């Protein structure tokens, strides 16, 4: 096997041409693509980490807010219950006062009515007594008749009462 300069140079030249072609068409663009992809993945991982941290912070924030809202709601409920109790007590008191007033008024009305009735009774009794006296004076009285008139008068008085 002889060494031939022409063949050696042809092989070297062929390899150099291949190197130039591959460097231009394959190595540079594809290595750049690999780097770009590596950078992109790294940046996306960084973004994911950042978002995760932000989410954790937001979660803590929401938990704190929920806790505040809960406490606030409990306070509001307690206030509402107290207010309700106060209003109920007021209404009860007012109802009691109204009832007392109504009772007092009814009693007063009853007394007035009783007084009115008594006055009317007295007036009727007077009128009956006058009528009875008139009848006695106009008619001839005997014992029997006298008794009947008095009994009738008494019955009238009892009926009126």
């Amino acid at each position, binding site marked *: *096997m002889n060494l031939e300069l022409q*063949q050696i140079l042809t*092989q070297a030249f062929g390899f150099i041409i291949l190197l130039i*072609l591959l460097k231009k*068409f394959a*190595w540079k663009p*594809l290595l750049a693509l*690999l780097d770009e992809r590596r950078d992109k993945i790294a940046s996306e991982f960084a973004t994911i980490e950042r978002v995760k941290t932000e989410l954790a912070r937001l979660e803590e924030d929401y938990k704190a807010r929920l806790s505040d809202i809960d406490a606030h709601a409990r306070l509001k409920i307690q206030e509402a219950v107290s207010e309700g109790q106060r209003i109920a007590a007021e209404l009860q008191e007012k109802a009691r006062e109204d009832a007392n007033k109504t009772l007092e008024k009814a009693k007063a009305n009853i007394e007035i009515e009783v007084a009115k009735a008594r006055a009317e009774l007295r007036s009727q009794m007077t009128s009956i007594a006058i009528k009875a006296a008139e009848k006695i004076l106009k008619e001839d009285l005997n014992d029997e008749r006298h008794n009947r008139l008095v009994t009738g008068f008494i019955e009238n008085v009892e009926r009126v009462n």
Partner: protein
Amino acid sequence: MAEAHNATPEVANIISLLHELFKGNSIVEFLHHNENAFFSGLIIIALAIFARFAARHRAMMPGKWQNFVEMVMESLDNITHGVLGHHGRAFTPFIGTLFIYIFLLNICGIIPGLKAPSSNLNTTVGLAITVFFYVQYTGIKRNGIGGYFFHLLGNPKDITGYCFIPLMFPLHVVEEFIKPMSLSLRLFGNMFGEDALIGVFVSLGIVALSFIGKTPVGIPFQIPFMLLAIITSVIQALVFSMLSTIYIMTMLPHDEEHYKDEVEEREEGVASWP
């Protein structure tokens, strides 16, 4: 079967068949004389077309072909980066192309109709000379002409180092010339031996059936050696390209501070050891 000039059995290829059929034809004679260059040219064209195709259809979300190409390229980039550290990326195209090209030169030996051009000394010497010049160019570019010669003088640091210059300089110069020789002879020897082995076993397969007369095929005794040749092709391509990487590394400036940083990086697991 075709017989090489030194009677080493060689599996027939397209060119040798044409030579048998059209003996005396000037074109066939020319092709036969330059068959290694012819097969190397075929590989160069195929690789260039494939590279153009792969680069043109590249996408951020790779398909299976792009995945395969990227896997090969990234592995070679990692190997180069592993040996040369932060200098690695600049040499990936050279080392990567060298590996792929030599692998394809080697593997052609087991493809019917083709021949492994790397089983010819002219091919391996051509590649080794390219590596030699590339290494020297890198040394001059990275160290400057003064730094390059200082490296050849053995990087003397004290009076002892300067005393050894007359010994170190010729030693380094001879070493630089021996490097491409060892590269070319190693690759040639392995691939030639492998091709010869396959050729011998193809002959043996034909001879084994000769008792029944002239047969179109023989017993394929060469198959185990063809499988072995796949491994050898990868290993030899890797050895050639790795040694070239190491030759480049020896030419790079030895920045001790940077070396310390790199060692720390590797110990922390940021970078991997070669």
